[in-house]
């Protein structure tokens, strides 16, 4: 990336220092967004026992988006409506399978926050690898951090643009 040459060495020096400072600010902010722990316990709802009935049919779950709070004890009752289906939760690794007519249930403690896809783990036809639902436990920290980094990137790029504009001649 080039900046237009600045008249005079003194100004050039200070703009380089400003630029370095700006970069440092961006990097520190990025590290904070990526790794700083979220404030916990601020209005976090108490964990409860949840019973969720999920129907599985080619090739979707109903409901396909589940929302629970961190720490909840979740029981998923899986009812298959056409052929044998399964429900495997990414990240947690728990799974259950159900034949039509025989409801199967899976109980676990949602002790990991974030967004987890759950998928069918019994081959159930052509679109089996894409039979997907989403379980949200508490706050989706990965998405929030990633979005935060993106916004930071936008701000950083705008900052650089402003600096270039100040340095010379860029609209």
């Amino acid at each position, binding site marked *: *990336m080039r900046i237009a040459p600045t008249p005079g060495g003194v100004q050039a020096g200070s703009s380089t220092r400003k630029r370095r400072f700006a970069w440092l600010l961006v990097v520190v902010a990025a590290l904070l967004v990526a790794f700083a722990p979220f404030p916990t316990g601020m209005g976090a709802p108490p964990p409860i026992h949840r019973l969720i009935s999920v129907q599985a049919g080619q090739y*979707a779950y109903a409901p396909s988006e589940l929302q629970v709070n961190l720490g909840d004890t979740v029981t998923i009752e899986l009812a298959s409506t056409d052929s044998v289906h399964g429900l495997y939760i990414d990240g947690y690794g728990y799974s259950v399978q159900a034949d039509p007519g025989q409801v199967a249930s899976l109980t676990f403690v949602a002790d990991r926050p974030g967004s987890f896809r759950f998928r069918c783990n019994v081959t159930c036809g052509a679109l*089996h*690898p*894409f039979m997907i639902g989403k379980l949200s436990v508490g706050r989706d920290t990965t998405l929030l*951090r*990633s979005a935060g980094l993106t916004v930071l990137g936008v701000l950083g*790029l705008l900052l650089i643009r402003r600096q*270039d504009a100040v340095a010379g001649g*860029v609209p």
Partner: protein
Amino acid sequence: MSTLELTASARLKALLKNRYAQLAVLVLMLAGYAFAIVAGVVGSPVGSSNFSIVFVWIAWWAALILVAVPLLGRGWCSVCPIPIPGEWLQRGNVLGPHGRQPRWRGLRWPRQLRNIWLQSAAFLLLALFSIVLLTTPLVTAVVLGSMLVAATALGMVFQRRSFCRYLCPVGGFIGLYSQVAPVELRVKDKLICISCEGKPCYNGSARGYGCPWDVFPGGLSRNTYCGLCMECLRTCPHDNIAVNLRAFASDLNQPAGRLDEAFKSFVMLGSALIYSAVLLGPWGALKDAAYRIGSSAWFVYVVSFLVIICLVLPGLFALCASPGRDARAFRLRFSRLSSALIPLGLAAWIAFSLSFILTNGTYVLASLSDPLNLGWNLFGTSGLAWQPLLSAVLAPTQSLALTGGFVWSGTLAHKVASESRISSVPAVLYAGAVTLLLMRLLL
């Protein structure tokens, strides 16, 4: 920018020039390709267990989008078996020029089609049927077979590798994204080319054939159209051609400003977005619409797909390129600025692909042991239960790829915008919005 000449190593250069080594690799690839077609036809109709689905859409795709394209540019094209039978027929030989070359039609590719519009159209055509293509072995076999037949037929009517250069749906985006790779093939000294008689790198000689990719190596400044076939390495009488290691995305510093390439950029970005929503999202209605070909829901899906890719995405970006009264200058600005989206597009495809590759990678191991679904267990893995790999690492890796791709694209957009004397703010905001949308869909 500094480059490291890899072919300075005499051993490496000899290996790259060696026709026997190249033939061995190509024959293996062609045998694997033929086997994949056969497996697609006579193997199990269950996609996740069929060799052709598993090895084309998981194993080969992973190697392509995660390794070959970002690191080797058109490295896959150099070993791709699709044009090979056609080329053998065209040349009348499987090893180097010898004896009389057969006389085929040998037409020049029509001038109006000497661009990548057809490749974008071919990719979009496949994309509309993608969910059936990815899951039905017979359909994959038919598509693979059709590409082989088309390449062979074109080889007997037109000169050189016309299928690869102007029709192959995969080649379209490999070429576009190969600009990111840290490997390139360039001439060492352009002055030598200027005084070279006969230009055997392009026209052929007793030592080798003229560039099958219809590229003049002396004029190569970007990776986009060089298929790394190494013919010019063999034909150049002045040893003026080199394969270099260089900085990533060097090609993007001088954007070509071609409208067909700009459009391809939106085809790739748009399809990454739509696939992320349809294939990896929890919305069964979308998947149904994409799968039931011929139903009214599918027509709605097709129209939406095309409108997003051909109108919405490029349209919004056109607003970022400061439309003005001078149409030609605006087109140039638009095309150049679009090339800034290339790192983000590649990052989007990497993030999207990682998801289904890591989730379904164990199918590859299982299929290796029973490639024809006959109950074999060649390597002991046929009973391997499906299990997602590296789940804990997936989301952070996707996040890193997308954030990195965005920052890269944003920086490039800033550079290109400055050179075009327009504000980079809209383009940066556009890229940021697309990145946030991708994150919402993938993470």
